[in-house]
């Protein structure tokens, strides 16, 4: 009876993990069989539908309090599954175009997604650790999935070594927190929180581990190399789903485990947020490789998200959740169009200088890329604007005027590098006639759907925002009463 309740509470994760196991078995018997892709899409879609329904359902705990369901967890699961689903939809054509469509890619994506679902539902430090590791180990392999390619091997090894190192910090932090409070449950740690050195050191090390996973400055060094070396659609997955999962977990840890009165974490996060926004945007300006540019832009976006966390109010948290969703939509789209250009023969289409005149050759792709880049800049009526506005407002209302000002200035600086590919695409003549291959129907419609979503949630954001605020405040109240 209990079992059924537990499994039902974590049903999206169970489905995705089971699909991961089934696909790897299929792959063992029939190498790279076509049904693997179908099963992957089906299970991710089923999980997505279930977790979206879960958002409107009750909030509670399962597996002896190891995980929570409903509310923030359900929204985090939805974002992760949304990102995974759309990345899988664009992955197939890209990977078969570059001749590396392995069945293992889908199995690893599914298992990583299951890890992320555990991470966003975590209510216990051990669950967080298992989630992060399940996700990261699959991503290390995915980064180097193209055998014999040097840049991929470099990405994979760098990611693995630095990731393993940061995991050490994370785990040590958890050990110290356990030593300081005698519990691994987030709420019990909050009750036992004190300002003695053991607790502070544990929390600080835990935060270092998280800052690495969300690639906040100064723990961002791996990001550009890994994003550049990984196959582009997998990069999209890393940049969106895994980052969202890590951010939701960080949000849960900050809001549930480390009460503001014990330690002034807002100060730490404020400094890291400023560094991340400034560094990410400044370095992105000088990038010529579009994948590196998007990597630094993802660092900058981590900075914006940290502003919302620094605010530390329910308003700030719901703004962060909204922004994660917005970021997932537009970033998958941007990486998707880059993946489309990149698989063309003749020129290195990760170099922005080679984007000259592309906008007129394939008008649809040009328009789509413009949509996603405008949304990343944060120009109305795209969803990026709403997300940025909500975070900005939350920072102002929480009294972080300086942070809000830096956020505005940093996004102003970002206009330069986001618009640069568009300038090349539309205002320069192509210097060489390179024939562009037409994209497949699934690939194209996936990107069109994403573009439509950037527009839809940019205009009709009210319902989603109300939903996020409502269940966050409900969570917040139970959390305060629980203390």
């Amino acid at each position: 009876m209990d079992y059924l309740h537990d499994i039902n509470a974590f049903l999206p994760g169970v489905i995705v993990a089971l699909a991961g196991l089934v696909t790897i078995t299929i792959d063992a018997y029939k190498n790279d069989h076509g049904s693997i892709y179908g099963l992957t899409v089906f299970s991710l879609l089923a999980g997505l539908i279930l977790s979206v329904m879960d958002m409107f359902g009750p909030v509670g705990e399962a597996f002896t309090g190891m995980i929570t369901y409903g509310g923030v967890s359900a929204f985090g699961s939805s974002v992760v599954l949304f990102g995974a689903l759309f990345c899988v939809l664009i992955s197939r054509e890209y990977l078969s175009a570059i001749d590396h469509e392995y069945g293992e890619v889908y199995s690893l994506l599914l298992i990583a997604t299951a890890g992320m679902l555990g991470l966003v539902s975590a209510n216990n430090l051990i669950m967080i650790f298992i989630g992060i590791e399940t996700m990261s180990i699959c991503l290390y392999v995915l980064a180097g999935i193209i055998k014999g390619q040097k840049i991929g091997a470099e990405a994979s090894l760098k990611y693995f070594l630095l990731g393993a190192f940061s995991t050490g910090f994370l785990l040590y932090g958890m050990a110290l927190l356990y030593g300081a409070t005698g519990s691994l449950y987030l709420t019990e740690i909050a009750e036992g929180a004190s300002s003695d050195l053991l607790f502070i050191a544990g929390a600080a090390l835990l935060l270092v581990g998280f800052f690495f996973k969300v690639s906040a400055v100064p723990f961002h060094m791996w990001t550009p190399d890994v994003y550049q070396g990984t196959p582009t659609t997998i990069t999209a997955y890393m940049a969106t789903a895994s980052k969202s999962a890590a951010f939701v977990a960080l949000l849960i840890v900050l809001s549930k485990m480390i009460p503001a009165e014990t330690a002034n974490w807002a100060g730490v996060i404020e400094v890291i947020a400023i560094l991340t926004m400034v560094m990410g945007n400044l370095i992105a300006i000088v990038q010529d490789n579009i994948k590196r540019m998007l990597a630094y832009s993802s660092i900058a976006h981590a900075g914006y998200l940290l502003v919302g966390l620094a605010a530390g109010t329910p308003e700030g948290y719901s703004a962060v959740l909204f922004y994660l969703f917005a970021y997932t939509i537009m970033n998958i789209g941007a990486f998707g169009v880059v993946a489309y250009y990149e698989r063309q023969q003749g020129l290195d289409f990760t170099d922005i200088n080679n984007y000259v005149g592309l906008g007129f050759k394939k008008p649809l792709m040009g328009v789509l890329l413009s949509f996603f880049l405008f949304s990343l800049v944060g120009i109305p009526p795209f969803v990026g604007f709403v997300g940025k506005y909500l975070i900005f407002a939350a920072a102002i209302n929480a009294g972080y005027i300086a942070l809000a000002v830096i956020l505005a200035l940093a996004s102003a600086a970002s206009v330069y590098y986001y618009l640069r590919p568009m300038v090349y695409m539309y205002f320069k003549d192509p210097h060489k006639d390179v024939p562009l291959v037409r994209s497949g129907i699934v690939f194209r419609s996936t990107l069109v759907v994403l573009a439509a979503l950037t527009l839809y949630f940019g205009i009709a954001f009210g319902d989603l925002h109300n939903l996020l605020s409502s269940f966050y405040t409900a969570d917040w109240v139970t959390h305060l009463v629980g203390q």
Partner: protein
Amino acid sequence: MFENYLPIAILAGVAVVLAILLMTLSRVLGPYRPNKTKLDPYESGMDPVGDAANRYSISFYLVAIAFIVFDVEVVFVYPWAVSYLDFGPGTLVSMIIFILELYVGLIYLIKKGALDWDLKKGMFN
């Protein structure tokens, strides 16, 4: 307070005596044929001095990885088996699920030819 440590002291004493006894016995009773190889440091049967960039089969790593997987399985299964009566029968299901997951890994390992030592037929050509 110190009498609590008496068993440890006895154990340490027995260990020292036993070590000395065994070494003396093997020296007295065993045949004594010294040669140069016996002075080499023991490195799991590998030549301790040589080129650092030595090439050897990648199967070595695969077997090591597979070994670690089942090693970790044992680490989980033993404590579970010992405390089974405390945990209750519900944990049997969890353990079966856990072992089935590992079994999927084993199937994958075998079907992909990772344990195929004939490199011409395996996955490394």
